[in-house]
Protein backbone atom coordinates (compact mmCIF):
# COMPACT_ATOMS: atom_id res chain seq x y z
CA UNK A 1 0.00 0.00 0.00
CA UNK A 2 2.96 2.29 0.53
CA UNK A 3 3.56 2.15 -3.17
CA UNK A 4 -0.05 3.23 -3.79
CA UNK A 5 0.52 6.21 -1.47
CA UNK A 6 3.65 7.22 -3.35
CA UNK A 7 1.85 6.98 -6.68
CA UNK A 8 -0.95 9.20 -5.32
CA UNK A 9 1.61 11.74 -4.19
CA UNK A 10 3.48 11.66 -7.49
CA UNK A 11 0.28 12.00 -9.47
CA UNK A 12 -0.62 15.32 -7.81
CA UNK A 13 2.35 17.05 -9.36
CA UNK A 14 1.41 20.60 -8.42
CA UNK A 15 1.12 19.88 -4.71
CA UNK A 16 4.08 17.52 -4.72
CA UNK A 17 6.24 20.21 -6.30
CA UNK A 18 4.84 22.93 -4.02
CA UNK A 19 5.69 20.90 -0.93
CA UNK A 20 9.21 20.11 -2.12
CA UNK A 21 9.82 23.75 -3.02
CA UNK A 22 8.51 24.88 0.39
CA UNK A 23 10.73 22.41 2.23
CA UNK A 24 13.72 23.26 0.04
CA UNK A 25 13.36 26.98 0.58
CA UNK A 26 12.83 26.62 4.31
CA UNK A 27 15.82 24.30 4.65
CA UNK A 28 17.95 26.61 2.51
CA UNK A 29 16.95 29.69 4.49
CA UNK A 30 17.53 28.02 7.85
CA UNK A 31 20.83 26.44 6.85
CA UNK A 32 22.10 29.60 5.22
CA UNK A 33 21.31 31.77 8.23
CA UNK A 34 22.55 29.18 10.70
CA UNK A 35 25.75 28.74 8.69
CA UNK A 36 26.37 32.50 8.68
CA UNK A 37 25.77 32.62 12.43
CA UNK A 38 28.03 29.63 13.07
CA UNK A 39 30.71 31.10 10.82
CA UNK A 40 30.50 34.49 12.53
CA UNK A 41 30.86 32.92 15.93
CA UNK A 42 33.71 30.70 14.82
CA UNK A 43 35.40 33.75 13.27
CA UNK A 44 35.52 35.33 16.72
CA UNK A 45 37.77 32.44 17.69
CA UNK A 46 39.53 32.00 14.36
CA UNK A 47 42.80 33.70 15.39
CA UNK A 48 42.91 31.59 18.53
CA UNK A 49 42.40 28.33 16.69
CA UNK A 50 44.81 29.31 13.94
CA UNK A 51 47.65 29.05 16.45
CA UNK A 52 48.36 25.35 16.37
CA UNK A 53 51.82 25.04 17.85
CA UNK A 54 50.67 26.22 21.31
CA UNK A 55 47.92 24.56 23.33
CA UNK A 56 47.65 27.13 26.12
CA UNK A 57 46.79 30.82 26.08
CA UNK A 58 47.69 32.99 29.05
CA UNK A 59 46.18 36.47 29.39
CA UNK A 60 45.34 39.10 31.96
CA UNK A 61 42.47 37.79 34.11
CA UNK A 62 39.72 39.94 32.61
CA UNK A 63 40.45 39.27 28.94
CA UNK A 64 37.54 37.40 27.29
CA UNK A 65 38.48 37.31 23.63
CA UNK A 66 41.25 37.83 21.11
CA UNK A 67 40.17 41.38 20.35
CA UNK A 68 40.51 42.51 23.96
CA UNK A 69 44.12 43.44 24.45
CA UNK A 70 45.53 44.25 27.84
CA UNK A 71 49.34 44.52 27.74
CA UNK A 72 51.18 42.21 30.07
CA UNK A 73 54.43 42.84 31.84
CA UNK A 74 57.41 40.78 30.63
CA UNK A 75 57.75 39.25 34.08
CA UNK A 76 54.51 37.37 33.46
CA UNK A 77 56.20 35.44 30.68
CA UNK A 78 58.93 34.33 33.06
CA UNK A 79 56.35 33.30 35.66
CA UNK A 80 54.58 31.12 33.11
CA UNK A 81 57.84 29.57 31.95
CA UNK A 82 58.53 28.69 35.57
CA UNK A 83 55.41 26.55 35.95
CA UNK A 84 56.06 22.83 36.06
CA UNK A 85 54.74 21.04 32.99
CA UNK A 86 55.29 23.94 30.58
CA UNK A 87 57.48 22.93 27.63
CA UNK A 88 57.83 26.44 26.33
CA UNK A 89 56.10 29.83 26.49
CA UNK A 90 56.39 32.72 24.04
CA UNK A 91 54.94 36.23 23.83
CA UNK A 92 52.50 37.39 21.18
CA UNK A 93 51.99 41.09 20.54
CA UNK A 94 48.78 42.42 19.01
CA UNK A 95 48.48 46.00 17.77
CA UNK A 96 45.83 47.85 15.78
CA UNK A 97 47.20 50.52 13.44
CA UNK A 98 46.39 52.37 10.22
CA UNK A 99 48.06 51.05 7.12
CA UNK A 100 48.34 52.55 3.65
CA UNK A 101 49.18 50.66 0.48
CA UNK A 102 51.40 51.87 -2.33
CA UNK A 103 48.26 52.77 -4.20
CA UNK A 104 47.10 54.94 -1.32
CA UNK A 105 44.44 52.62 0.11
CA UNK A 106 43.94 53.18 3.84
CA UNK A 107 42.86 50.45 6.22
CA UNK A 108 42.97 49.74 9.90
CA UNK A 109 45.16 46.65 10.28
CA UNK A 110 45.85 44.14 13.01
CA UNK A 111 49.54 43.54 13.48
CA UNK A 112 50.53 40.31 15.17
CA UNK A 113 54.08 40.35 16.49
CA UNK A 114 55.44 36.79 16.59
CA UNK A 115 58.25 35.92 18.98
CA UNK A 116 61.47 36.34 16.95
CA UNK A 117 63.24 33.39 18.51
CA UNK A 118 60.59 30.69 18.49
CA UNK A 119 58.21 32.01 15.82
CA UNK A 120 55.42 30.56 18.01
CA UNK A 121 52.02 31.41 16.59
CA UNK A 122 53.18 31.65 13.00
CA UNK A 123 50.54 30.68 10.38
CA UNK A 124 50.88 27.04 9.43
CA UNK A 125 49.50 27.37 5.90
CA UNK A 126 50.53 29.86 3.24
CA UNK A 127 48.99 30.80 -0.11
CA UNK A 128 52.32 32.16 -1.35
CA UNK A 129 55.74 32.72 0.24
CA UNK A 130 57.27 31.26 3.39
CA UNK A 131 56.01 32.22 6.83
CA UNK A 132 59.45 32.29 8.42
CA UNK A 133 60.52 35.03 6.01
CA UNK A 134 59.22 37.48 8.63
CA UNK A 135 62.45 36.99 10.59
CA UNK A 136 63.80 39.74 8.36
CA UNK A 137 63.19 43.21 9.78
CA UNK A 138 60.19 45.21 8.50
CA UNK A 139 58.60 42.32 6.68
CA UNK A 140 55.17 40.83 7.13
CA UNK A 141 52.81 38.29 5.70
CA UNK A 142 49.24 39.32 4.99
CA UNK A 143 45.97 37.36 4.97
CA UNK A 144 43.96 36.99 1.70
CA UNK A 145 41.22 39.43 2.84
CA UNK A 146 43.83 42.03 3.75
CA UNK A 147 45.51 41.56 0.38
CA UNK A 148 42.16 42.19 -1.32
CA UNK A 149 41.58 45.34 0.74
CA UNK A 150 44.98 46.83 0.01
CA UNK A 151 45.43 45.51 -3.52
CA UNK A 152 41.91 44.88 -4.85
CA UNK A 153 41.60 42.52 -7.79
CA UNK A 154 45.32 41.93 -8.02
CA UNK A 155 46.86 38.46 -7.92
CA UNK A 156 48.79 37.42 -4.82
CA UNK A 157 52.37 38.57 -5.14
CA UNK A 158 55.21 39.14 -2.68
CA UNK A 159 57.25 42.33 -2.71
CA UNK A 160 54.50 44.91 -2.28
CA UNK A 161 54.51 47.09 0.79
CA UNK A 162 52.18 48.64 3.30
CA UNK A 163 53.17 51.82 5.12
CA UNK A 164 52.34 52.06 8.83
CA UNK A 165 53.29 55.10 10.91
CA UNK A 166 55.83 56.18 8.36
CA UNK A 167 57.56 52.81 8.23
CA UNK A 168 57.35 50.61 5.22
CA UNK A 169 56.42 47.00 5.85
CA UNK A 170 57.32 44.71 2.97
CA UNK A 171 54.86 41.90 2.21
CA UNK A 172 56.77 38.63 1.85
CA UNK A 173 53.87 36.21 1.64
CA UNK A 174 50.12 35.63 1.85
CA UNK A 175 48.92 33.42 4.68
CA UNK A 176 45.99 31.01 4.55
CA UNK A 177 44.50 31.79 7.96
CA UNK A 178 40.78 31.90 8.72
CA UNK A 179 39.00 35.19 8.08
CA UNK A 180 38.96 37.38 11.21
CA UNK A 181 35.69 38.48 12.80
CA UNK A 182 36.67 42.15 12.52
CA UNK A 183 37.34 41.89 8.81
CA UNK A 184 40.57 43.86 9.26
CA UNK A 185 43.74 42.85 7.40
CA UNK A 186 45.87 40.54 9.54
CA UNK A 187 49.58 41.17 9.23
CA UNK A 188 51.92 38.67 10.86
CA UNK A 189 55.33 40.10 11.54
CA UNK A 190 58.12 39.57 14.02
CA UNK A 191 57.61 40.91 17.50
CA UNK A 192 60.63 43.16 17.16
CA UNK A 193 59.19 44.71 14.00
CA UNK A 194 55.73 45.07 15.55
CA UNK A 195 57.17 46.68 18.66
CA UNK A 196 58.39 49.55 16.54
CA UNK A 197 54.76 50.40 15.72
CA UNK A 198 53.58 50.10 19.32
CA UNK A 199 54.37 53.67 20.14
CA UNK A 200 53.85 54.88 23.68
CA UNK A 201 53.31 51.40 25.07
CA UNK A 202 55.68 50.11 27.66
CA UNK A 203 54.68 46.42 27.61
CA UNK A 204 55.16 44.40 24.45
CA UNK A 205 53.18 41.27 25.30
CA UNK A 206 49.45 40.91 24.62
CA UNK A 207 49.15 37.15 25.06
CA UNK A 208 51.45 34.39 26.20
CA UNK A 209 51.38 31.27 24.07
CA UNK A 210 52.52 28.11 25.82
CA UNK A 211 52.88 24.44 25.17
CA UNK A 212 52.41 21.80 27.83
CA UNK A 213 55.19 19.25 28.12
CA UNK A 214 54.58 15.84 26.50
CA UNK A 215 52.29 13.79 28.75
CA UNK A 216 51.26 16.87 30.71
CA UNK A 217 47.65 17.63 31.44
CA UNK A 218 46.87 21.05 29.98
CA UNK A 219 43.89 21.53 32.31
CA UNK A 220 46.02 20.97 35.38
CA UNK A 221 48.74 23.26 34.04
CA UNK A 222 46.15 26.00 33.52
CA UNK A 223 45.09 25.61 37.15
CA UNK A 224 48.69 25.92 38.30
CA UNK A 225 49.13 29.14 36.27
CA UNK A 226 45.86 30.56 37.58
CA UNK A 227 46.99 30.02 41.15
CA UNK A 228 50.02 32.25 40.50
CA UNK A 229 47.69 35.26 40.58
CA UNK A 230 47.24 38.02 38.00
CA UNK A 231 47.11 35.53 35.14
CA UNK A 232 44.42 33.55 33.44
CA UNK A 233 45.37 30.42 31.53
CA UNK A 234 43.06 28.56 29.19
CA UNK A 235 43.42 25.80 26.67
CA UNK A 236 42.97 26.83 23.05
CA UNK A 237 39.43 25.44 22.97
CA UNK A 238 38.50 27.08 26.29
CA UNK A 239 39.72 30.46 25.08
CA UNK A 240 37.93 29.97 21.73
CA UNK A 241 34.72 29.05 23.56
CA UNK A 242 35.04 32.10 25.82
CA UNK A 243 35.50 34.32 22.78
CA UNK A 244 32.46 32.87 21.02
CA UNK A 245 30.39 33.21 24.18
CA UNK A 246 31.54 36.79 24.63
CA UNK A 247 30.35 37.82 21.16
CA UNK A 248 27.44 35.45 21.14
CA UNK A 249 25.99 36.94 24.30
CA UNK A 250 25.76 40.37 22.68
CA UNK A 251 22.46 39.70 20.88
CA UNK A 252 23.58 38.96 17.33
CA UNK A 253 22.54 35.28 17.48
CA UNK A 254 19.04 36.37 18.46
CA UNK A 255 18.68 38.29 15.20
CA UNK A 256 19.68 35.24 13.24
CA UNK A 257 17.43 33.01 15.31
CA UNK A 258 14.46 35.21 14.34
CA UNK A 259 15.14 34.57 10.64
CA UNK A 260 15.78 30.87 11.26
CA UNK A 261 12.52 30.59 13.20
CA UNK A 262 10.61 32.41 10.47
CA UNK A 263 12.07 30.00 7.92
CA UNK A 264 11.02 27.08 10.10
CA UNK A 265 7.49 28.35 10.67
CA UNK A 266 6.83 29.45 7.10
CA UNK A 267 8.35 26.29 5.63
CA UNK A 268 6.48 24.00 7.98
CA UNK A 269 3.23 25.94 7.58
CA UNK A 270 3.28 25.84 3.78
CA UNK A 271 4.35 22.20 3.70
CA UNK A 272 1.89 21.18 6.39
CA UNK A 273 -1.03 23.05 4.89
CA UNK A 274 -0.36 21.77 1.38
CA UNK A 275 -0.03 18.24 2.71
CA UNK A 276 -3.27 18.53 4.65
CA UNK A 277 -4.96 19.88 1.50
CA UNK A 278 -3.57 16.98 -0.48
CA UNK A 279 -5.01 14.52 2.03
CA UNK A 280 -8.39 16.31 2.17
CA UNK A 281 -8.67 16.41 -1.61
CA UNK A 282 -7.97 12.69 -1.66
CA UNK A 283 -10.61 11.97 0.95
CA UNK A 284 -12.76 9.98 -1.47
CA UNK A 285 -9.99 7.66 -2.74
CA UNK A 286 -8.82 7.21 0.83
CA UNK A 287 -12.38 6.35 1.91
CA UNK A 288 -12.46 3.82 -0.91
CA UNK A 289 -9.22 2.32 0.40
CA UNK A 290 -10.80 2.08 3.85
CA UNK A 291 -13.87 0.39 2.39
CA UNK A 292 -11.81 -2.27 0.63
CA UNK A 293 -10.11 -3.11 3.90
CA UNK A 294 -7.05 -0.93 4.21
CA UNK A 295 -6.30 -0.60 7.91
CA UNK A 296 -5.63 2.65 9.77
CA UNK A 297 -2.12 1.39 10.37
CA UNK A 298 -1.54 0.93 6.65
CA UNK A 299 -2.95 4.39 5.94
CA UNK A 300 -0.81 5.87 8.72
CA UNK A 301 2.32 4.30 7.26
CA UNK A 302 1.29 5.54 3.84
CA UNK A 303 0.94 9.12 5.10
CA UNK A 304 4.21 8.89 7.01
CA UNK A 305 5.98 7.68 3.89
CA UNK A 306 4.44 10.41 1.74
CA UNK A 307 5.56 13.01 4.30
CA UNK A 308 9.01 11.43 4.55
CA UNK A 309 9.48 11.51 0.77
CA UNK A 310 8.54 15.19 0.65
CA UNK A 311 10.83 16.02 3.57
CA UNK A 312 13.78 13.97 2.34
CA UNK A 313 13.60 15.31 -1.22
CA UNK A 314 13.02 18.89 -0.04
CA UNK A 315 15.80 18.63 2.53
CA UNK A 316 18.22 17.24 -0.05
CA UNK A 317 17.43 20.00 -2.53
CA UNK A 318 17.52 22.68 0.19
CA UNK A 319 20.79 21.41 1.63
CA UNK A 320 22.27 21.15 -1.84
CA UNK A 321 21.33 24.74 -2.63
CA UNK A 322 22.65 25.92 0.76
CA UNK A 323 25.95 24.11 0.21
CA UNK A 324 26.27 25.45 -3.33
CA UNK A 325 25.55 29.02 -2.22
CA UNK A 326 28.03 28.58 0.62
CA UNK A 327 30.70 27.44 -1.82
CA UNK A 328 30.05 30.40 -4.11
CA UNK A 329 30.23 32.86 -1.20
CA UNK A 330 33.46 31.29 0.06
CA UNK A 331 35.24 32.41 -3.08
CA UNK A 332 35.11 35.98 -1.69
CA UNK A 333 38.31 36.58 0.31
CA UNK A 334 36.52 38.17 3.28
CA UNK A 335 33.94 35.37 3.44
CA UNK A 336 36.36 32.49 2.91
CA UNK A 337 35.60 31.06 6.34
CA UNK A 338 31.90 30.53 5.64
CA UNK A 339 31.06 26.90 6.23
CA UNK A 340 28.02 24.71 6.65
CA UNK A 341 28.61 22.24 9.49
CA UNK A 342 26.87 18.89 9.05
CA UNK A 343 25.32 19.37 12.49
CA UNK A 344 23.48 22.42 11.17
CA UNK A 345 22.43 20.64 7.98
CA UNK A 346 21.07 17.72 9.96
CA UNK A 347 19.59 19.85 12.75
CA UNK A 348 17.61 22.13 10.44
CA UNK A 349 16.20 19.16 8.51
CA UNK A 350 15.26 17.48 11.78
CA UNK A 351 13.65 20.68 13.11
CA UNK A 352 11.57 21.07 9.97
CA UNK A 353 10.62 17.39 10.04
CA UNK A 354 9.51 17.72 13.67
CA UNK A 355 7.27 20.71 13.01
CA UNK A 356 5.92 19.24 9.77
CA UNK A 357 5.27 16.06 11.74
CA UNK A 358 2.45 17.93 13.45
CA UNK A 359 0.77 18.41 10.07
CA UNK A 360 1.33 14.73 9.24
CA UNK A 361 -0.31 13.79 12.52
CA UNK A 362 -3.23 16.14 11.76
CA UNK A 363 -3.54 14.51 8.33
CA UNK A 364 -3.57 11.07 9.89
CA UNK A 365 -6.25 12.12 12.36
CA UNK A 366 -8.29 13.42 9.45
CA UNK A 367 -7.89 10.13 7.62
CA UNK A 368 -8.82 8.15 10.72
CA UNK A 369 -11.94 10.24 11.09
CA UNK A 370 -13.02 9.74 7.49
CA UNK A 371 -16.32 7.95 7.26
CA UNK A 372 -15.74 5.12 4.79
CA UNK A 373 -19.45 4.87 4.05
CA UNK A 374 -19.22 8.36 2.54
CA UNK A 375 -17.84 6.70 -0.56
CA UNK A 376 -21.37 5.48 -1.36
CA UNK A 377 -22.75 9.02 -1.45
Amino acid at each position, binding site marked *: *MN*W*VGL*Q*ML*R*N*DRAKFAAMIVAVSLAVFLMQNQAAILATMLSMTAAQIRDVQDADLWVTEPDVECFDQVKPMRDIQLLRVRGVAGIAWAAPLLKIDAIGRSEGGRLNTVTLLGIDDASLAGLPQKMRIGRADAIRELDTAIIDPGGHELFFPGEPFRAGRSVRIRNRRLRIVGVSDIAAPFTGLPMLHTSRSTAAAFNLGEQHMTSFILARSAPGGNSGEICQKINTLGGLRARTTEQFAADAMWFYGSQGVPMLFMVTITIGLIVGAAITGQTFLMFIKENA*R*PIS*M*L*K*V*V*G*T*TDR*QLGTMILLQGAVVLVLGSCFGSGIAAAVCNVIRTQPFLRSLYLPWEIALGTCFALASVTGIALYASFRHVRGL*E*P*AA*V*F*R
Partner: protein
Amino acid sequence: MTSPDSTAVLCTGIRKHFGEDDARVEVLRGVDYTVRRGELSFLVGPSGCGKTTLISIIAGLQETSSGEVSLFGNHLARMPHPERVLFRRCHLGFVFQQYNLLQALTAAENAAIPLLAAGVRRREAVDRAATLLDRLGLGSKTGSFPRQLSGGQQQRVALARALVHEPRLIICDEPTAALDHATGEAVMELLASAAVHPDRAVIVVTHDSRVFHFADVIARMDDGHITHVEPGQRTVANPHLGSSRNSHPSA
Protein backbone atom coordinates in the same frame (compact mmCIF):
# COMPACT_ATOMS: atom_id res chain seq x y z
CA MET B 1 -37.39 -23.34 3.60
CA THR B 2 -33.73 -22.51 3.04
CA SER B 3 -31.03 -24.18 5.08
CA PRO B 4 -28.83 -21.80 7.13
CA ASP B 5 -25.82 -22.93 5.11
CA SER B 6 -27.23 -21.43 1.96
CA THR B 7 -27.64 -18.00 3.53
CA ALA B 8 -25.03 -15.41 2.64
CA VAL B 9 -26.51 -12.30 4.21
CA LEU B 10 -29.05 -12.34 7.00
CA CYS B 11 -30.35 -9.05 8.36
CA THR B 12 -32.88 -9.23 11.15
CA GLY B 13 -34.72 -6.27 12.61
CA ILE B 14 -32.19 -3.70 11.48
CA ARG B 15 -32.93 -0.26 12.83
CA LYS B 16 -30.78 2.78 12.26
CA HIS B 17 -31.30 6.35 13.32
CA PHE B 18 -29.14 9.44 13.13
CA GLY B 19 -29.26 12.29 15.64
CA GLU B 20 -31.18 12.48 18.88
CA ASP B 21 -34.44 13.99 20.16
CA ASP B 22 -35.85 16.58 17.73
CA ALA B 23 -33.05 15.97 15.25
CA ARG B 24 -33.58 12.21 15.28
CA VAL B 25 -34.05 10.71 11.84
CA GLU B 26 -35.10 7.10 11.56
CA VAL B 27 -33.52 5.73 8.38
CA LEU B 28 -34.09 2.01 8.79
CA ARG B 29 -37.16 0.82 10.68
CA GLY B 30 -36.71 -2.86 11.27
CA VAL B 31 -35.34 -4.33 8.05
CA ASP B 32 -35.32 -8.07 7.51
CA TYR B 33 -33.33 -9.01 4.46
CA THR B 34 -31.82 -12.24 3.26
CA VAL B 35 -29.51 -12.98 0.37
CA ARG B 36 -28.62 -16.53 -0.51
CA ARG B 37 -25.32 -17.82 -1.77
CA GLY B 38 -25.13 -17.73 -5.55
CA GLU B 39 -27.83 -15.08 -5.71
CA LEU B 40 -27.87 -11.76 -7.51
CA SER B 41 -30.14 -9.66 -5.35
CA PHE B 42 -31.35 -6.22 -6.35
CA LEU B 43 -32.18 -3.66 -3.69
CA VAL B 44 -34.39 -1.02 -5.26
CA GLY B 45 -36.38 1.91 -4.05
CA PRO B 46 -36.69 5.67 -4.17
CA SER B 47 -33.92 8.03 -3.06
CA GLY B 48 -33.64 8.35 0.69
CA CYS B 49 -35.42 5.09 1.42
CA GLY B 50 -32.35 3.71 3.23
CA LYS B 51 -30.72 1.49 0.59
CA THR B 52 -27.26 2.98 0.98
CA THR B 53 -27.48 2.90 4.76
CA LEU B 54 -28.49 -0.75 4.63
CA ILE B 55 -25.56 -1.77 2.41
CA SER B 56 -23.19 0.29 4.60
CA ILE B 57 -24.41 -1.68 7.59
CA ILE B 58 -24.14 -4.99 5.74
CA ALA B 59 -20.56 -4.06 4.79
CA GLY B 60 -19.74 -3.25 8.41
CA LEU B 61 -19.08 0.39 7.60
CA GLN B 62 -21.82 1.62 9.93
CA GLU B 63 -23.23 0.33 13.19
CA THR B 64 -26.85 -0.59 13.60
CA SER B 65 -28.98 1.09 16.26
CA SER B 66 -30.51 -2.32 16.82
CA GLY B 67 -30.85 -5.61 15.00
CA GLU B 68 -28.29 -8.10 13.74
CA VAL B 69 -26.33 -8.68 10.56
CA SER B 70 -24.77 -11.98 9.78
CA LEU B 71 -22.52 -12.56 6.78
CA PHE B 72 -21.90 -16.22 6.08
CA GLY B 73 -22.60 -16.91 9.73
CA ASN B 74 -20.32 -14.14 11.05
CA HIS B 75 -21.84 -11.39 13.16
CA LEU B 76 -20.06 -8.21 12.16
CA ALA B 77 -21.35 -6.17 15.11
CA ARG B 78 -19.69 -8.58 17.53
CA MET B 79 -16.30 -8.30 15.86
CA PRO B 80 -13.70 -5.82 17.12
CA HIS B 81 -13.04 -3.05 14.61
CA PRO B 82 -9.69 -4.35 13.27
CA GLU B 83 -11.16 -7.81 12.77
CA ARG B 84 -14.11 -6.33 10.94
CA VAL B 85 -11.74 -4.46 8.60
CA LEU B 86 -9.87 -7.69 7.88
CA PHE B 87 -13.14 -9.53 7.30
CA ARG B 88 -14.19 -6.86 4.82
CA ARG B 89 -10.82 -7.05 3.10
CA CYS B 90 -11.04 -10.82 2.67
CA HIS B 91 -14.70 -11.45 2.01
CA LEU B 92 -16.26 -8.34 0.51
CA GLY B 93 -15.93 -6.63 -2.84
CA PHE B 94 -17.37 -3.28 -3.83
CA VAL B 95 -18.49 -1.56 -7.00
CA PHE B 96 -19.36 2.12 -6.70
CA GLN B 97 -21.43 4.45 -8.79
CA GLN B 98 -18.48 6.81 -9.39
CA TYR B 99 -15.99 3.94 -9.93
CA ASN B 100 -13.60 5.51 -7.38
CA LEU B 101 -10.52 4.51 -9.29
CA LEU B 102 -7.21 6.06 -8.25
CA GLN B 103 -6.13 8.36 -11.06
CA ALA B 104 -2.47 7.70 -10.28
CA LEU B 105 -2.73 3.98 -10.98
CA THR B 106 -3.20 2.00 -14.17
CA ALA B 107 -6.23 -0.21 -14.71
CA ALA B 108 -4.37 -3.30 -13.55
CA GLU B 109 -2.95 -1.53 -10.52
CA ASN B 110 -6.38 -0.21 -9.58
CA ALA B 111 -7.84 -3.66 -9.87
CA ALA B 112 -5.04 -5.01 -7.69
CA ILE B 113 -5.75 -2.72 -4.72
CA PRO B 114 -7.54 -5.32 -2.53
CA LEU B 115 -4.63 -7.71 -3.04
CA LEU B 116 -2.11 -4.98 -2.21
CA ALA B 117 -4.08 -4.14 0.93
CA ALA B 118 -3.88 -7.82 1.85
CA GLY B 119 -0.10 -7.71 1.54
CA VAL B 120 0.29 -9.56 -1.76
CA ARG B 121 3.50 -8.55 -3.54
CA ARG B 122 2.92 -5.85 -6.12
CA ARG B 123 4.04 -7.77 -9.18
CA GLU B 124 1.94 -10.80 -8.31
CA ALA B 125 -1.08 -8.65 -7.44
CA VAL B 126 -0.91 -6.68 -10.67
CA ASP B 127 -0.43 -9.86 -12.72
CA ARG B 128 -3.49 -11.43 -11.16
CA ALA B 129 -5.50 -8.27 -11.74
CA ALA B 130 -4.33 -8.08 -15.36
CA THR B 131 -5.44 -11.67 -15.95
CA LEU B 132 -8.85 -10.85 -14.55
CA LEU B 133 -9.10 -7.69 -16.66
CA ASP B 134 -8.33 -9.83 -19.67
CA ARG B 135 -11.24 -12.08 -18.78
CA LEU B 136 -13.43 -8.99 -18.50
CA GLY B 137 -12.43 -7.88 -21.98
CA LEU B 138 -9.92 -5.22 -20.98
CA GLY B 139 -6.76 -7.13 -21.79
CA SER B 140 -5.49 -4.33 -24.01
CA LYS B 141 -6.17 -1.66 -21.39
CA THR B 142 -4.33 -3.01 -18.36
CA GLY B 143 -1.68 -0.31 -18.60
CA SER B 144 -4.14 2.54 -19.23
CA PHE B 145 -4.91 5.17 -16.63
CA PRO B 146 -8.53 5.87 -15.68
CA ARG B 147 -8.56 9.14 -17.63
CA GLN B 148 -7.79 7.14 -20.77
CA LEU B 149 -10.77 4.84 -20.29
CA SER B 150 -14.46 5.28 -21.08
CA GLY B 151 -17.07 5.13 -18.32
CA GLY B 152 -17.96 1.53 -19.15
CA GLN B 153 -14.30 0.51 -19.16
CA GLN B 154 -13.73 2.23 -15.83
CA GLN B 155 -16.68 0.38 -14.34
CA ARG B 156 -15.25 -2.88 -15.62
CA VAL B 157 -11.96 -2.04 -13.90
CA ALA B 158 -13.98 -1.36 -10.74
CA LEU B 159 -15.66 -4.72 -11.22
CA ALA B 160 -12.27 -6.38 -11.53
CA ARG B 161 -11.23 -4.65 -8.31
CA ALA B 162 -14.31 -6.09 -6.63
CA LEU B 163 -13.58 -9.60 -7.88
CA VAL B 164 -9.81 -9.88 -7.81
CA HIS B 165 -9.54 -11.21 -4.27
CA GLU B 166 -12.43 -13.61 -4.81
CA PRO B 167 -14.74 -12.22 -2.14
CA ARG B 168 -17.87 -14.03 -0.98
CA LEU B 169 -20.12 -10.99 -1.12
CA ILE B 170 -20.06 -8.22 -3.69
CA ILE B 171 -21.91 -5.01 -2.97
CA CYS B 172 -22.64 -2.78 -5.93
CA ASP B 173 -23.97 0.71 -5.44
CA GLU B 174 -25.73 2.02 -8.56
CA PRO B 175 -23.18 0.39 -10.89
CA THR B 176 -24.99 1.54 -14.03
CA ALA B 177 -26.16 4.98 -12.96
CA ALA B 178 -23.34 6.84 -14.67
CA LEU B 179 -23.50 4.75 -17.84
CA ASP B 180 -25.68 4.83 -20.93
CA HIS B 181 -28.13 1.99 -21.47
CA ALA B 182 -25.98 -0.17 -23.72
CA THR B 183 -22.91 0.18 -21.53
CA GLY B 184 -24.98 -0.42 -18.41
CA GLU B 185 -26.37 -3.59 -19.95
CA ALA B 186 -22.87 -4.74 -20.84
CA VAL B 187 -21.57 -4.08 -17.33
CA MET B 188 -24.52 -5.91 -15.77
CA GLU B 189 -24.02 -8.77 -18.19
CA LEU B 190 -20.45 -9.01 -17.06
CA LEU B 191 -21.43 -8.73 -13.41
CA ALA B 192 -24.00 -11.48 -13.78
CA SER B 193 -21.61 -13.80 -15.56
CA ALA B 194 -18.37 -13.09 -13.71
CA ALA B 195 -19.53 -12.36 -10.19
CA VAL B 196 -22.17 -14.95 -9.61
CA HIS B 197 -20.71 -18.05 -8.08
CA PRO B 198 -22.16 -20.82 -5.91
CA ASP B 199 -20.46 -19.53 -2.77
CA ARG B 200 -20.84 -15.86 -3.54
CA ALA B 201 -23.72 -13.45 -3.28
CA VAL B 202 -24.12 -10.15 -5.07
CA ILE B 203 -26.20 -7.23 -3.86
CA VAL B 204 -26.93 -4.50 -6.38
CA VAL B 205 -28.46 -1.24 -5.25
CA THR B 206 -30.01 0.44 -8.25
CA HIS B 207 -32.65 2.82 -9.54
CA ASP B 208 -32.13 1.61 -13.06
CA SER B 209 -35.24 -0.42 -13.95
CA ARG B 210 -33.76 -1.20 -17.36
CA VAL B 211 -31.40 -3.72 -15.75
CA PHE B 212 -33.91 -5.38 -13.40
CA HIS B 213 -34.05 -8.40 -15.67
CA PHE B 214 -30.61 -9.43 -14.43
CA ALA B 215 -31.89 -9.98 -10.89
CA ASP B 216 -32.57 -13.30 -9.24
CA VAL B 217 -34.43 -11.47 -6.50
CA ILE B 218 -35.65 -7.89 -6.25
CA ALA B 219 -36.14 -6.42 -2.78
CA ARG B 220 -38.08 -3.16 -2.83
CA MET B 221 -37.46 -0.65 -0.09
CA ASP B 222 -39.47 2.32 0.97
CA ASP B 223 -39.27 4.57 3.99
CA GLY B 224 -36.78 2.39 5.86
CA HIS B 225 -38.58 -0.93 5.25
CA ILE B 226 -38.30 -3.72 2.77
CA THR B 227 -41.82 -3.61 1.48
CA HIS B 228 -41.73 -6.35 -1.07
CA VAL B 229 -39.45 -9.17 -2.22
CA GLU B 230 -40.09 -10.74 -5.57
CA PRO B 231 -38.28 -13.16 -7.82
CA GLY B 232 -36.45 -11.46 -10.65
CA GLN B 233 -36.80 -12.29 -14.30
CA ARG B 234 -33.23 -13.16 -14.96
CA THR B 235 -32.88 -13.63 -18.68
CA VAL B 236 -30.12 -16.16 -18.22
CA ALA B 237 -31.02 -18.83 -15.71
CA ASN B 238 -28.77 -18.88 -12.65
CA PRO B 239 -27.46 -22.42 -12.37
CA HIS B 240 -26.25 -21.81 -8.82
CA LEU B 241 -29.72 -21.39 -7.39
CA GLY B 242 -31.23 -24.58 -8.73
CA SER B 243 -34.74 -25.47 -7.60
CA SER B 244 -34.77 -23.01 -4.70
CA ARG B 245 -34.99 -20.09 -7.14
CA ASN B 246 -38.66 -19.51 -6.47
CA SER B 247 -38.66 -20.20 -2.76
CA HIS B 248 -36.81 -17.16 -1.43
CA PRO B 249 -37.04 -16.87 2.36
CA SER B 250 -37.78 -13.15 2.22
CA ALA B 251 -40.61 -13.56 -0.26
